[in-house]
């Protein structure tokens, strides 16, 4: 009997105390299960078999999940091109704020060795940009952005009002520092004329952002709606001129603006810029071949020792995950297995010792 494992998952029910209370005295406490702390209860015990089998199961799951994640992460095709140095002259130009009206473009040719199958997404990526600074994050006015009160510039200081006291729309440091490079991807089909790769700007924002959180003030036309406000100091044009062709992409509803306003958690981050419109040559995705990025370089990063890059990437079932999650799962699974083996060993050893002790 004693050789049997002594711990099992046992569910012991404490029986309700039954007491006949004949004495009807008022001072006698009520005989309810709650008051007498006699609620039926079950006990959770860590039994050897239970814990070990749980551990093995967890280990199997984690390992499996890890391998799947790693494989799927491997299947992702990704190209990243840092263009701060490549477009060095533009970067230098932008270091001086007075050159804001000078246009600087930069073309970066590259070769795509393999076809990028499926949906392809284009991101811009910033290094060393602290979008998570406490005061930076607060430097916005949600009630302004939702279009209800353009004059509400509550937390936006120092980007709340221009020198003459007109409220800035959109106010705040986030809006002011918007990423304003234009990136156009072109494909050289037959080493002749480059074709502009069709890109979609829709669907790069959250539905709630586009339809709930950001709203233009209601008015006949946008410019009159924003009357009485001024543009942020770093902006080249006012908010109502961001996309004059598409009213659904203009003003606060501008997708690039909305994406920028969703602040990143880390100083290195990438934000979705465009996604591939799978038509013509690009039904299967991006075919292998020669491409080039045509960048209108506006956003200065060298002043804070930052870097910019443009990223093309495909996705898998779990999104554009990196290797970390898969590796972490694998490691966790392996550690869990290791732990369960050593636990089993220790447990068996102890049991042997107990047996010995009893035999003596």
């Amino acid at each position, binding site marked *: 009997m004693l050789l049997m494992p002594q711990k099992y998952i046992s569910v012991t029910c404490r029986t309700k105390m039954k007491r006949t209370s004949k004495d009807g005295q008022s001072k*006698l406490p*009520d005989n309810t299960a709650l008051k007498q702390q006699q609620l039926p*209860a079950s006990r959770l015990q860590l039994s050897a078999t239970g814990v070990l089998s749980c551990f093995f199961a967890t280990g199997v799951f984690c390992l499996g999940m890890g391998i799947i994640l790693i494989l799927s992460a491997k299947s992702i095709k990704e190209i990243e091109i840092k263009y701060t140095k490549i477009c060095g002259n533009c970067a230098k130009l932008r270091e001086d704020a007075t050159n804001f009206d000078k246009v600087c473009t930069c073309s970066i040719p590259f070769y795509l060795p393999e076809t990028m199958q499926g949906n392809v997404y284009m991101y811009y990526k910033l290094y060393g940009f602290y979008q998570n600074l406490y005061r930076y994050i607060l430097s916005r006015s949600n009630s302004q952005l939702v279009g209800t009160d353009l004059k509400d510039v509550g937390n936006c200081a120092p980007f709340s009002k221009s020198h003459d006291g007109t409220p800035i729309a959109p106010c705040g440091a986030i809006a002011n520092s918007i990423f304003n490079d234009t990136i156009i991807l072109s494909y050289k089909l037959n080493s002749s004329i480059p074709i502009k790769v069709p890109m979609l700007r829709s669907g790069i924002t959250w539905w709630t952002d586009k339809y709930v959180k950001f709203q233009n003030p209601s008015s006949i036309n946008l410019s009159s709606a924003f009357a009485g406000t001024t543009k942020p100091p770093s902006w080249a044009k006012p908010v109502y001129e961001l996309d004059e062709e598409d009213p659904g992409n203009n003003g606060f509803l501008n997708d690039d603006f909305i994406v920028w306003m969703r602040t990143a958690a880390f100083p290195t981050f990438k934000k979705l810029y465009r996604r591939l419109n799978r038509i013509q040559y690009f039904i299967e995705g991006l075919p292998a071949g020669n491409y080039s990025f045509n960048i209108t370089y506006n956003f200065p990063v060298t*002043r*804070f020792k930052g870097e910019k890059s443009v990223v093309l990437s495909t996705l898998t079932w779990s*999104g554009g995950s990196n290797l970390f999650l898969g590796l972490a799962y694998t490691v966790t699974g392996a550690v869990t297995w290791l732990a369960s083996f050593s636990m089993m060993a220790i447990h068996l050893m102890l049991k042997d010792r107990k047996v010995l002790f009893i035999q003596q």
Partner: protein
Amino acid sequence: MFCSEKKSLEVERIVKANDREYNEKFQYADNRIHTSKYSILTFLPINLFEQFQKVANAYFLFLLLLQLIPEISSLTWFTTLVPLVLVITMTAMKDATDDYFRHKSDNQVNNRLSEVLIDSKLRNEKWMNVKVGDIIKLENNQFVAADLLLLSSSEPHGLCYIETAELDGETNLKVRHALSVTSELGADFSRLAKFDGIVVCEAPNNKLDKFTGVLSWKDSKHSLNNENIILRGCILRNTSWCFGMVIFAGPDTKLMQNSGKTKFKRTSIDRLMNTLVLWIFGFLVCLGIILAIGNSIWENQVGDQFRTFLFWNERGKNSLFSGFLTFWSYIIILNTVVPISLYVSMEVIRLGHSYFINWDRKMYYAGKSTPAEARTTTLNEELGQIEYVFSDKTGTLTQNIMTFQKCSINGKIYGEVHDDMGQKTDITKKNEPVDFSVNPQADRTFQFFDHRLMESVKLGDSKVYEFLRLLALCHTVMSEENSAGQLIYQVQSPDEGALVTAARNFGFIFKSRTPETITIEELGTLVTYQLLAFLDFNNIRKRMSVIVRNPEGQIKLYSKGADTILFEKLHPSNEDLLTLTTDHLSEFAGEGLRTLAIAYRDLDDKYFKEWHKMLEDANALMDERDERIAGLYEEIERDLMLLGATAVEDKLQEGVIETITSLSLANIKIWVLTGDKQETAINIGYACNMLTDDMNDVFIIAGNTAVEVREELRKAKENLFGQNRSSSNGDVVFEKQQLELDSVVEETITGDYALIINGHSLAHALESDVKNDLLELACMCKTVVCCRVTPLQKAQVVELVKNYRNAVTLAIGDGANDVSMIKSAHIGVGISGQEGLQAVLASDYSFAQFRYLQRLLLVHGRWSYFRMCKFLCYFFYKNFAFTLVHFWFGFFCGFSAQDVSDQNSMDYPQLYEPGQLNQLFNKRKFFICMAHGIYTSLALFFIPYGAFYNAAGEDGQHIADYQSFAVTMATSLVIVVSVQIALDTSYWTVINHVFIWGSVATYFSILFTMHSNGIFGMFPNQFPFVGNARHSLTQKCIWLVILLTTVASVVPVVVLRFLKMDLCPTLSDRIRQRQKAQKKARPLRSRRPQTRRSSSRRSGYAFAHQEGYGELITSGKNMRAKNPPLTSGLEKTLYNSTSWLEHFCKKTTDTVSSFSQDKTVKLYTYL
């Protein structure tokens, strides 16, 4: 101020009777008592002051002030203000209600009525209006309103009887008497009103057994002592009325002087929390400094350029200043490690436990229909940490009822019940008690289960007759017939009451006495004995004898007393009987019964006459009278013939033995502190199994001077160590112990020791230099009994242990004499359902029976403690996990203060608290919790960080935005801590399920509500998280992250727990085992070993009796005029009537000192 200054200067008190104006100029305190702390005006300032002494409250106030500075405020100020105000209001309200009840009880006492003589008339006055110098009338069974000088009483010679159990716990009645000059005043109001004596006496003090003063009246001075004083708290007994003059009133009374100050009690967890709060604050400061330095560096290296790019406002902010501000911001943000909700929830949990105590039916005493009551709600978990219990004896351990249990007559034991097999069995309900209905005079309450004694009486066994006759003759009981014609005994000592009642039921009925005769009814026939001499009891003689002449003319000496004394006086022919009786006595003593040996002697006429002549001569002597008389008593009390022995049980309260046994198994030390005699206290010790014959040694400290006491303590210690050394030297097995001996002496003391110390010695032992010796010795002993201690000494003993041992103490008592110790112990327990209320009012918990202490400590205390600890551990763990995430985040956001998980996380901690009401757990694993919390926070932060870094969502959008990150982390946190609490939950009840699942559900519902369009539409600035939950929680990879975080944080915990359980069982496992062991051990322990080593012979003698009653009887002073003294042939009045009173006073004041002198062997062992 003037008043108090004056009081401190009061060196003597002058009081004039019936002259309020005269007395007013001294500004003596009136008879109103205050035990309350606040009045309406002082409540707010005093209470607030007290509350802000709590470190936590002060800390939150500080935080609140910080948050009021907009520059650094990272959380809104009302997040701290609202709970702080709530906490303070709740505590204040509780204090106010507590104080209200104290006011109420004060009022109740202050408004008691007493009859005061004003303008020659008796008027009903409230107690509080009684003034010093007033003459008040007391009636039988009334509480005494103030400290009075007895003027006159209904009894002859101005005697009156008082019960002092409330004051000192002694059970026998005490006699007080008025000065003869004042006793003549009688009940004559006009004469009493004219009484204008001036009393000059000592200033108010707390000495219960001392009083010195002088009464000047009618140009003569009379000295006053304690015998003339009745103290507040006493009850008048056997005296229909008496008059007294108020000397000390209200707070000046000795009773109130003995009640200690009400102290603000805090649990050790509270104190620990205070330290922890300080540590955590220090920790926060460190974190804050790290982050502030980081911020400065960042500002310097990166921020500057970054700022220029962002056109950041240049208000001359340099990096150092920014770092400084960051420091304070982080202090505020990180304060969630000790959120104020922790304090609120602690109070809520404690309140819940208090209700559980109140609701417990197993602590409800049906006999007095009193449930247990938690009178303070803040001390519950301390009940699980008690190391020392200080218990009163009378009324707490004992019922204060004496019953005649057994006797040994002529070598035959009576009173034991045998079963069919001839084996001794315990008395159960099944046994039929002896039927006394044939005897119409029998006392119906008396029960005896051995039918053989009645049979022996019926058979006419002459020895049995003699035995019972002795019991009926040799005593100081007075008889009376009540209106129904029933015989009522007025007893001075409850032991004698039991013995005389036993004799009465067996047919030897004591009917009446005069100074010269005793009339008893022997089996239906009235027999009058002439009382020739009364050889009174005192503590040196430890015996009393009467010499009577029966109707046949035979002179007999009947004696009862301590076996140790009496056996030396026996005639050599008694040897066989002596051994038999000795065996029986050992048996009785082993059962904790109070024994008396019984013997007689036949005297011949001539010898007695000679002896009597010598006695008269001795009485006439001026000096050495006492010595001569004592010698004569010795002379005649010899060659006694042994009759047998009696065994009286000082009835214990129900379940005392079991309670004490299980408490000591739980490693709780029990000390008995009693005002009663040493013998009585020791006997109770044996009766409760606190002292046993198996003990290696019992040390008795009874020295009278500081030097003696020190010497005795030293010897006892030497003895203890010496024995231990020698025993361990002799045994190889103990070699290891021997090695440890030097380092941890106390731990290695093998064997059981007991210490008995009396009040006089204690007074010396409590002096500073001996204190440590006493404490060291006492703590090494298994049992400590302090006898003859004053209420204040009780408190001092408690304080001693409390302060020098750092142990958690509990004091339990029932009377006013226990109030001070109840107040000074960490936890005071009052026995409720008794007459006096003082103990209950001063206590923190009250219940009706001592035995409930077991349940209070082992069940409620343990649960409260375990639950509280588990709660704290968990809370700290959770908060560390939660808060440190901020810290890690700090490294990635340029060290600017940042609240990651925002409001949703702020809202949910409270949701867990009620769910924790049903768990048990463990000790101060604060650091483990902290480490655990840190680990979890690492997992919580870095797994999402790694996973989100450079990742994108299923729709290609970036998911590493700050809001999604916060939601992921908050959700992981909730799930991790929920799994954690599920693992921690020992017992899953419906409530647990509701709360754990409920809290997770509530989290998600709050999350979705706060992230909903509707709420954003209403408050766009306050709830910017719109759509976040919807978007994030539909992402597969976010759930994968949450899952991984949970697994990674929980797996190591489970591994550690599993290994711990396997390798070394946890504390709760051990306690569970111990509880099992207790259950097994209990039936064994409660049975006393029947066979004893003959060498462990111990006297079970104990007798609650006072010297002086013999003289009272023989002088006839305490007898009513309705019993006119019969003249007899023999000279009866041994002393002239003026001298006996003085003699009486002298004797009684000597009692205490003589008591300690009789310890010729100060230190002896029972081995």
